[in-house]
């Protein structure tokens, strides 16, 4: 897995998928009854991804996303930008959050307890706000 390609946001992912369908923003939105302004904002990250799973599924359908991996990726990216921890991850390890590639690693590789602890430490260092360290 290429970490660089994984490090994209929800909006960039949406745009990549739309362009892969060879659809311009206007054409895509016209065909799917979407508001081009809002869709553009979502692609640019100005608008947060929808919280509703039904809406996320609807977006995936419109973008022709069918494989379970791609669908999961869309959900993860949406959750990451919502600042939420996906339900299955939350039940697994509370400290792990934010990064879709982390979600994927955990789901796919079932890391050891030791690995998880190291990962948690790393994330604490990298993404947890400094003032939380002081607590």
């Amino acid at each position, binding site marked *: 897995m290429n970490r660089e390609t994984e490090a994209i946001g929800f909006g960039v992912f949406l745009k990549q998928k739309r*362009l892969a369908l*060879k*659809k*311009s*923003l*206007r*054409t895509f*939105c*016209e065909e799917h009854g979407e*508001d*081009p*302004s809002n869709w*553009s904002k979502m692609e*640019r990250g100005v608008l947060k991804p929808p919280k509703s799973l039904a809406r996320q599924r609807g977006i995936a359908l419109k973008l022709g996303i069918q494989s379970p991996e791609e669908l999961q990726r869309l959900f993860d990216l949406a959750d990451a930008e919502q600042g939420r921890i996906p339900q299955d991850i939350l039940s697994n390890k509370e400290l792990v959050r934010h990064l879709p590639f982390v979600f994927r690693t955990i789901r796919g590789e079932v890391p050891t307890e030791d690995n998880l602890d190291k990962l948690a430490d790393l994330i604490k260092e990298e993404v947890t706000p400094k003032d939380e360290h002081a607590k």
Partner: protein
Amino acid sequence: MSMLNEEIPEFRKYSDDEIEARATDILTRHWNGQLPVDVDYIIESQFDIQLFPIPDMKRLTGFEAAIDPMRDQIYYDPRSQDVNSLRLNFSIAHEFGHFLLHKDVFEWLRTRRDNEYPEWVKTTREFSALFESDRIEREANSFAGRLLVPYKHLSEKLSEFKSRNPQYAQAEKMIKEEGRPMADALRNYVARDIHQAFRVSVQCVEYRLRTSGLIPNS
């Protein structure tokens, strides 16, 4: 400081042939050959330009589309899509034409002011009032027409029209006798029939039929 007292450089001018070559080059490299030409897709997928839909821009500013040369962004009013999508296609292609043809103008503008949008508007207004804005607009229009209505495809559509309309040959003869009024009428008649294939207005196809020489004035 106003530009009025500054020396204005000589900007690049384009002949019709050069604009045709530029449009053809874009189509050859970035278009799949299927009508209509999806200019938005070409811009989004092949160029480092962002297209921003701004609802109500037309009502609020009078502009249906506009280019911000400071940021390589093209704005458009998505509501124009409902009102007149054919015109919006042309407007976006027109702004794309500015991006491709008038880099030197934009680069010069960049050096004059900081990148604040109101300053850019002010600068551009001064610029439009004083320096060749008509030429620049004409060049962008010419590019848009050539991009959205490629010569080869226009020629094919005209041939199809002729085969469906046996009276066409007679109309051509009348142009020789009556000149431009008859040519205008024929161009309008043909354009009304074929313009939807290109997703542009009747006027745009009329213009292309005339400038391409496919239906000349005499």
